[in-house]
């Protein structure tokens, strides 16, 4: 036993799969400890806030400032407000009025502004320019001028009489230490369409999805094992009955069955565990089949005959002479069941037939939400990409562990 375990952990494939799996598991366990609270709580009002650290602007205003004179601060400030389209339209205006712009690099903000300030005159109206276009150039120019001036911002607040009273001045050289700002929130994966913390949701969803996989895998493996052992070892009429039922379940695609059952249960009654139960109850057939065929090849072995001759009962023979010989196989089947149950849940949820959406997030539900709110069209990668990645990692690691186990238990497969 110990020896087998050592062998298993010496298999590189198993080890890699195991490490990935444990890493994903740790995320699910540890993240909620550092960041407790309901993962479905809507913290943001808007949708899809990008990943990053958010500092409360309100608090930042009152926070003690330090002064830094950084040479490139103004340029950076300008560069950040000057979008690519602005730059292109500036060049367009310049060419329209006949300024030579050859050799001008439009990403060079200083050079662009210099040539702009030297030439722009709002009274000049190039040919073919509409009024609206002209106005937009005027407002663009105003924006540029006000930024370039590095004016002091004045924060005002109405006092008791409703008179505006100056609270503080903000110089362009004022900086606050992020650590001094009272309210700061870090959202490593931003927020989703409902304004929820995606990483928190993800950690919770991993836990739920693994739980669904585990419960469904246990149910499917247990049913498959018991039926396979009985029908394989006892044979006869019992075998016929079990195989009949198994064949019925095999003929109807289990996913169709899943959809029908889940649909008939109704959204309100579908908790995560109900979904796990349904997945488990529809996916035991291939475990039954393979356990049965293994048992049939074992039941006429001499060690089983010897056990019979020693007067052992049927239960004892099945438990001590059959089960240990297929145990490694059952473990592998169990791992695959977990992985396929997690994928089944994701597929069901994508179709809107997964667990109800108000209780706990699951990986499938998160994908469902991302899809419903077109995160993929809006380029909100943080709302769906991490989920897909985690699903892929879980199923990759489980399958890798399975391959590793397979190589340990069936040495003929080793290369």
């Amino acid at each position, binding site marked *: 036993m110990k020896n087998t375990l050592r062998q298993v952990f010496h298999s590189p494939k198993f080890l890699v799969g195991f490490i990935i799996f444990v890493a994903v598991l740790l995320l699910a366990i540890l993240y909620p400890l550092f960041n407790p609270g309901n993962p479905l709580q809507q913290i943001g009002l808007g949708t899809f806030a990008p990943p990053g650290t958010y500092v409360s602007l309100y608090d930042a205003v009152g926070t003690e400032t330090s002064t830094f004179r950084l040479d490139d601060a103004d340029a950076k400030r300008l560069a950040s407000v000057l979008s690519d389209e602005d730059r292109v339209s500036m060049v367009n205006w310049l060419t329209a009025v006949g300024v030579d712009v050859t050799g001008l690099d439009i990403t060079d903000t200083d050079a662009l502004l210099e040539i702009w300030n030297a030439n722009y005159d709002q009274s000049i109206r190039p040919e073919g320019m509409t009024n609206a276009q002209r106005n937009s150039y005027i407002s663009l120019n105003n924006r540029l001028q006000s930024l370039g001036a590095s004016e002091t911002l004045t924060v005002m607040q109405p006092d008791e009489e409703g008179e505006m009273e100056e609270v503080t001045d903000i110089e362009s050289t004022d900086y606050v230490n992020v650590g001094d700002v009272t309210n700061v929130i870090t959202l490593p994966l931003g927020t989703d369409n409902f304004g929820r913390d995606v990483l928190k949701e993800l950690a919770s969803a991993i836990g739920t999805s693994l739980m669904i996989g585990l419960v469904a895998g246990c149910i499917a493996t247990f049913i498959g094992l018991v039926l396979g052992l009985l029908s394989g070892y006892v044979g006869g009429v019992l075998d016929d009955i079990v195989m009949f039922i198994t064949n019925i379940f095999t003929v109807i695609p289990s996913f169709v069955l899943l959809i029908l059952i889940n649909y008939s249960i109704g959204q309100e009654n579908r908790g995560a565990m109900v979904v796990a139960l349904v997945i488990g109850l529809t996916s035991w057939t291939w475990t039954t089949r393979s356990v049965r065929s293994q048992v049939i090849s074992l039941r006429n072995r*001499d*060690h089983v005959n010897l056990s019979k001759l020693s007067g052992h009962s049927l239960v004892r023979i099945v438990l*001590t002479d059959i089960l240990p010989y297929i145990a490694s196989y059952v473990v592998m089947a169990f791992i695959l069941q977990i992985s396929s149950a997690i994928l089944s849940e994701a597929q069901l949820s994508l179709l809107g037939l997964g667990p109800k959406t108000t209780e706990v997030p699951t990986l499938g539900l998160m994908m469902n939400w991302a899809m419903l709110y077109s995160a993929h069209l809006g380029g909100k990668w943080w709302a769906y990409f991490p989920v897909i990645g985690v699903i892929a990692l879980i199923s990759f690691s489980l399958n890798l562990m399975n391959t590793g186990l397979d190589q340990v238990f069936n040495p003929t497969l080793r290369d």
Partner: protein
Amino acid sequence: MKNDPTTTVNMSDHRIDVKSRPLCLSGKGVTKYFGFGKKITKAVDHVDFEFHEGELVSIVGESGSGKTTPSKMLLGLISVTDGDIYFQGQKRDISTRRKKREYWHGIQAIFQDPFSSFNTFNRIDTVLLDCINMRGGKHLSKEKKFEMMTEACSFVNLKFAELTNKYPFELSGGQMQRLMIARIFLLKPKILLADEPTSMIDACSRATILDMLLQLRNETGMTIIFITHDIGLAYHISDSIYIMEHGKFVESGSADEVILHPKAAYTRRLISDVPKIHEAWDLTTV
């Protein structure tokens, strides 16, 4: 003198005349077919046999001639397609699990392949303890059980103290077959079916094992049904011989009768195929 093969295996002078003894196992028209229709294999085809108490009878045949199949039927491990088997004068009844267990008190077996005969997850103690329990020794004290196991092991030249907590697969093939005999020693059945117990091991261990079987027969008076493909070996150890060809007994009788005065052509062929060390082989017949 247990371990000296040259002196012990040649038992041809010690043959017993068994015809006067009562029957302990016999069969009439015993048949076993595998498969259906075109794919049918007549593994055993309407054979009659009579085994007497204390007899050592050999069933001899080529590989695939259907020797293991009747032994499995006699053990009640596979069903009989047709025919009747009589155990101690009465028609054998193993219709329930209980009766089967009762029957297995009287008949035990040693299988062809020692390497697949043991559950690799059970320790050697477990194997032997099961035998003691089966013989109703469940309530014996630990010391008594230990003593019995030690005795059984020393009968087959194994040291039990060294084997406790070991697994069968940690033994050599010969040691495993000896452990099998230790099992039989503890169980003391009326009939022992030995299905080519020596075919997977070397000649020296073979002599030891045969010697142990013979000693067991002499001490307990059990009937041994010895299945082998080696007609020379059968002649040396057995009282009577059944020759099997394609699921049928083509010849049977006392060992001297069958070997010295063979009637069936198949028997003659088997005898002529035995390699003789002092003669040059005539490869044209092979």
